[in-house]
């Protein structure tokens, strides 16, 4: 193997969000290139935001990504509210959390069943599964639809919600909406998640048994498995405040990617379900904890392919957490309230973070004294994961060669690795300071 030559190129990896190519080049046993090229056209969002009034900013940043639009809106609103000193009600926080959980359910189900599962079942997409496993496909569609319906009832619609504004909501869900969500979660989502767990347990041996330990980063809170807010936690270095996020992300440019790369304590770090799980495992709700045990997952999970399995564990967690929040909201009753408004506009800056399905997301805005954007910065989970994907590939190629895998098997395994990160490539090139060498 020491003099092996290997060249693998996968243009436009399928079943991921956005455009990325896998390039592996080994010459005489030396790995010259092993990376994910991000070739999505850059979007220039930070430049575009300049001059827009604070009321419009979340609407525009929502368009960074259709799949993560709830996460972008919520993070954007939090950052704007921090910058302009807008205090939101407890009800608004609870409803936003519910929405974030609904969006997490939706995204996790989409990834586990539609994007990742076909590889475990040896088919090119979910389409042939409709013929061979109709009950599973129908169940997955049902789960996804319920998650979407939850977002519809809370945010107005699933993709680019239209009820969220700085200070609160332009329209509130009714008591009947919340009761409906609670009943459907209990009657439908919990049993379907349990059936999914049994299924995934059977398929789990198909995940490559590859491990590479790295630094895992996610939000952490002393009281809950953090999604909505918290401090930034690293498995290597502990906690820092969200305001200090730039010290964690350290963005840098690589020539092969229109998405920047990030690193902190090591050459790269991991964000996403594994980043959260490895920092917050102790705070999982009971069904989620049981699901983790069932799948043999305990921190620190070092196999990147298992990010998909942890997403199912998190699906249980967010369902259980949603039920808790709905009970609180129902016991207090939904209060009709108008969105809070800023006092006298003045210059200000606010940086905020949310755990979105693919990992920790940062938005940071500076406003002038008319409430218009002067400077904006958004750091996206996939941007933070791209270097980690490259480092995994560098370790995975020799690992696969040691196991005498065929080139086809290696190609599939590399694609599975990229998919395991559930990358959101449109997001990762949302702006950006890019260098593009051809």
């Amino acid at each position, binding site marked *: 193997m020491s003099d092996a030559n290997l060249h693998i190129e996968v243009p436009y990896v399928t079943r991921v969000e956005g455009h990325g190519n896998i390039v592996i080049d080994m010459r005489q046993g030396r790995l010259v290139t092993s990376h994910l090229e991000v070739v999505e056209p850059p979007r220039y969002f930070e430049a575009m935001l300049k001059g827009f009034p604070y009321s419009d900013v979340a609407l525009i940043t929502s368009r960074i*990504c*259709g799949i993560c639009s709830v996460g972008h809106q919520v993070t954007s609103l939090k950052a704007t509210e921090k910058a302009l000193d807008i205090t939101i009600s407890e009800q608004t926080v609870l409803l936003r959390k519910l929405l974030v959980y609904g969006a997490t359910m939706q995204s996790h189900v989409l990834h586990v069943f539609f994007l990742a599962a076909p590889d475990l079942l040896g088919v090119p997409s979910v389409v042939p599964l409709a013929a061979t496993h109709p009950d599973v496909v129908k169940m997955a569609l049902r789960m996804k*639809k319920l998650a979407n319906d939850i977002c519809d009832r809370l945010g107005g619609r699933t993709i680019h919600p239209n009820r969220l504004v700085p200070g609160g909501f332009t329209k509130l869900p009714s008591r009947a909406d919340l009761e409906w969500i609670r009943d459907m979660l209990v009657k439908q989502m919990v049993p379907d998640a349990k059936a999914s767990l049994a299924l995934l347990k059977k398929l789990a041996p198909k995940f490559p048994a590859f491990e590479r330990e790295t630094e895992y980063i996610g939000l952490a809170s002393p009281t809950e498995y953090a999604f909505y807010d918290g401090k930034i936690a690293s498995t290597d270095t502990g906690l820092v405040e969200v305001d200090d996020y730039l010290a964690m992300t350290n963005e840098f440019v690589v020539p092969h990617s229109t998405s920047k790369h990030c690193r902190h304590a090591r050459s790269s770090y991991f964000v996403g379900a594994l980043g959260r799980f490895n920092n917050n495992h102790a705070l999982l709700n009971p069904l989620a904890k049981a699901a983790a045990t069932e799948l043999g997952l305990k921190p620190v999970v070092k196999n990147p392919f298992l990010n998909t399995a942890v997403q199912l564990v998190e699906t249980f967690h967010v369902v259980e957490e949603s039920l808790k929040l709905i009970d609180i909201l129902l016991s207090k009753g939904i209060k009709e309230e108008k969105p809070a408004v800023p006092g006298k506009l003045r210059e200000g800056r606010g940086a905020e973070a949310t755990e979105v399905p693919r990992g920790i997301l940062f938005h940071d805005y500076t406003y002038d004294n008319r409430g218009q954007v002067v400077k904006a910065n958004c750091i996206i989970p996939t941007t933070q994961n791209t270097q980690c994907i490259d480092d995994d590939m560098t370790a995975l190629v020799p690992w696969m060669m040691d196991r005498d895998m065929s080139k086809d098997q290696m190609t599939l395994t590399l694609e599975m690795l990229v998919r395991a990160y559930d990358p959101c490539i449109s997001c990762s090139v949302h702006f950006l300071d890019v260098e593009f060498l051809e």
Partner: protein
Amino acid sequence: MSKPKVAFFDFTSCEGCQLSKLNLEDDLLAILDLVELVNFREAISDRRDDYEIAFVEGSISTPHCVERIHRIRRQAKILVALGACAHIAGVNAIRNRMNIDAVKEEVYGKDKYLFPSIKAQAVADVVKVDFFVPGCPMDNQEFKRVLTAILTGTQPHIPEYAVCVECKARENECLYDYGTVCMGPVTRAGCGAACPSNGHYCFGCRGVVPDLNANAARDVMEKYKLSMHQIRNRFAMFNANYVEVQEKQNE
């Protein structure tokens, strides 16, 4: 009879419209009975180039996009633009109002010459488009209606009146009464006044209504003592390219 071969392609966009189709959970399997999906990168691994109907999402914003859209146009018998980015260039066009060289300089610094970028354009600005589904995100029901029309050889109905018509029919309170500048009077209907019905102003994602009654819109602004500057800000979000064309005509 063989099923028509269908492909989906995405250009500069958030892929929300692609996701939107995967959100047609109740109808997805029925649609797959009617067409053969040969290329849909986000959802399936197959990729063939023998499609007859191409659905295109996203704006044209790099030289590579231009090449690719011409290739797709040559192959497809029918080309459909999906969503605001493809239909009117959407939020991507915001950057067109800025000096592209200055943007590149700011973003790329010394490397600005390395990155090829052109003005963000609607698909119809570059190649012929047979049908379009407006909106950000596109409306799933409208997508289904357009697909049905194409498959049955009829003409899809896309409304040519303003969002206000649908908003009134839903008996919403007018947001202008609350001092909010809403794009309803100038925006093409068909969304069922989705945003005003949720208490949110319309931001014009479906594009400007054909035969815009600018005088009536101006009357609304005057009635509520709002400045044209405020509505111009709203136009800047999704209709920056429309504004540019108008300004050129007025020169």
